[in-house]
């Protein structure tokens, strides 16, 4: 068990190293952060050279990567081309993304599991057809279409109907609000639409997984036995079937959740949230882009989350299903 964990962690570290090297080189070669400065009329060669030296652009790429890695091992993410420390910036962004992603994941799990189970128990009944249709609709809809629909149409209508702004569509909060309750209420009003957007696109896939897993279990012999013993349908469903049908879903949720730590890029952009996704996007396309240090810092955090949660998912699987642990 411990050896297994150690081996997985080691493999994860190697993957992260290879990945960081690849991305560092790729980003560094993908453009010149001083292009805008060079294009400005009246900027002397000396100024450009000084800027290049300040950003270490004149050093060999391998040296720059090595210096960055060295800093990283000492807990220093370096500073971005705009001069801000990457570490503290990412910490801020991570907090914003968590505020969006965690509620959305919790809601998606609840809705996904409930809808999936009902669909499976009432297979091919109207309720199943409706939920299948909705799931298809939601995973065929690009996130930005859903987000814009809520932002430009639903929010406008709701706010007009109520007479004042209930649903905010831009940013995480209104600055200058005082009082714990007011701040909290304000944040909830801001979070409502992005969280709904993310929930709708996320639950759709999970409910299908839950339905498939539940159908598998419901057709198993031990469920027939449980029914034959005369257990109540409720007990068979919740104690015997659901507990086993949750196992595959938990791993899917863990892996998808990890990917969301890297940011719900499109949702964040539609609703102007300054989360991890925006940070990556700005690092690649904003001023002074491509920003190698910002992107590499993002990759370290997002990639580590993916690696850790993959290991966690496998461990969980083993804990929940002893047959896998022994295999």
């Amino acid at each position: 068990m411990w050896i297994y964990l150690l081996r997985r962690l080691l493999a994860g570290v190697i993957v992260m190293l290879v990945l960081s090297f690849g991305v560092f080189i790729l980003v560094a070669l993908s453009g010149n952060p001083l292009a805008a400065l060079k294009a400005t009329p009246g900027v002397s060669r000396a100024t450009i050279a000084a800027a290049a030296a300040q950003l270490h652009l004149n050093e060999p790429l391998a040296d720059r990567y090595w210096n960055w890695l060295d800093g990283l091992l000492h807990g220093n993410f370096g500073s971005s081309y705009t001069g801000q420390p990457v570490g503290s910036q990412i910490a801020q962004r991570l907090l914003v993304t968590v505020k969006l992603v965690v509620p959305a994941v919790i809601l998606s799990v609840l809705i996904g599991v409930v809808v999936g189970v009902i669909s499976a128990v009432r297979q091919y009944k109207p309720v199943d057809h409706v939920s299948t249709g909705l799931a298809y609709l939601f995973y065929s809809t690009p996130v930005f279409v859903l987000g814009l629909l809520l932002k430009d149409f639903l929010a406008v209508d709701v706010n007009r109907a109520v007479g004042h702004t209930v649903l905010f569509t831009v940013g995480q909060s209104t600055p200058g609000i005082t009082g714990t309750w007011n701040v909290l209420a304000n944040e909830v009003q801001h979070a409502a639409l992005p969280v709904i957007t993310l929930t709708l696109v996320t639950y759709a896939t999970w409910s299908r997984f839950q339905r498939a897993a539940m159908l598998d279990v419901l057709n198993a012999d031990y469920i027939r036995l449980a029914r034959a013993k005369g257990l109540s349908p409720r007990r068979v469903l919740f104690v015997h079937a659901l507990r086993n049908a949750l196992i595959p879903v938990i791993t899917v949720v863990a892996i998808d959740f990890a990917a969301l730590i890297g940011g719900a890029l499109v949702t964040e952009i539609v609703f102007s949230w300054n989360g991890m996704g925006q940070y990556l996007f700005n690092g690649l396309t904003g001023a002074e882009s491509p920003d190698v240090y910002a992107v590499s810092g993002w990759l370290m955090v997002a990639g580590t989350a993916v690696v850790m949660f993959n290991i966690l998912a496998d461990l969980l699987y083993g804990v929940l299903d002893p047959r896998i642990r022994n295999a």
Partner: protein
Amino acid sequence: MPEPAPGITPPTPALTLVTDAIQDPAVESRSQFRLALERFAHHRLALAGLVVFLLLVLLSTLGSVFWQYSYSTITSDFATGPSPQHPFGTDLIGHDLFAQVMEAEATSVKTAALVALIATTIGTVIGAIAGYYGKLADALLMRFTDLILAVPLLAVLLVLANKLSKQAGSWFWIALILGLLLWTNLARQVRGAFLSLREREFVEAEHAIGASDLRIVFRHMIPNAIGSIVVTATLTVALALLIEAVLSFLGLGIQPPEVSLGSLVSSGQDAATSLPWLFFFPSGFLVVTILSINFIGDGLRDALDPTQRATR
């Protein structure tokens, strides 16, 4: 209850029954392809998806050729709602939205189809080599696949798309990038199928009569795995449409003067509240296209690959 097929008389012993059936012209032999076609035809949603998708392709091809305006024509009407002259209305500078949506639909479908073609070819070849030869080839190729899978797809896409779209924002380059990144799923599936296929008797028999590796792989093993290949290829089209739309929405995909459904939604979003047609027509076409392909994929799964039904 369906009547028993003519030519089959229940009391006869099994052997004569089979020969009877072969000799009886009333019972036609049905090929695997025919059987799959029949199963597909029974899947009503898939059939509807196919019809809708073909109509969309036809409409967008005809629309971009025969419609009175080209997608780049600037007419004298700007910001007008749907009318007989402009069925989908016009945008802020006077582009006819119908012409634009038709052109965008064609570009998006074209891009997604090329992505699926590239990804399917790479995925099949890598999966086939890994699964057929096993051992070192398998280990190397699968570690490579794992690495591609571990890469946050979006990050690499953004880097590459950003670089390429600035230089040549053509649909071809976007399709190439997506194709080079979206093959991993298929490679794993083909590898899995090949690992079990290569142990089967008919492959052993081919080895025994001295068939070449190429012949075994292409004539015997790929046809046996074609079901999951076709299904995954179809779902890749839907995935590519989604990803291309997101990239174009972010301004990193299809670049002007070319238009795609994602870039149309993106350019219409600022005026979406006052000129809602700029949002609803392109995003409607986008969702219907992706939905129809997902339904086709589902039908194909039932028809070609009945063992894979459980997922999704």
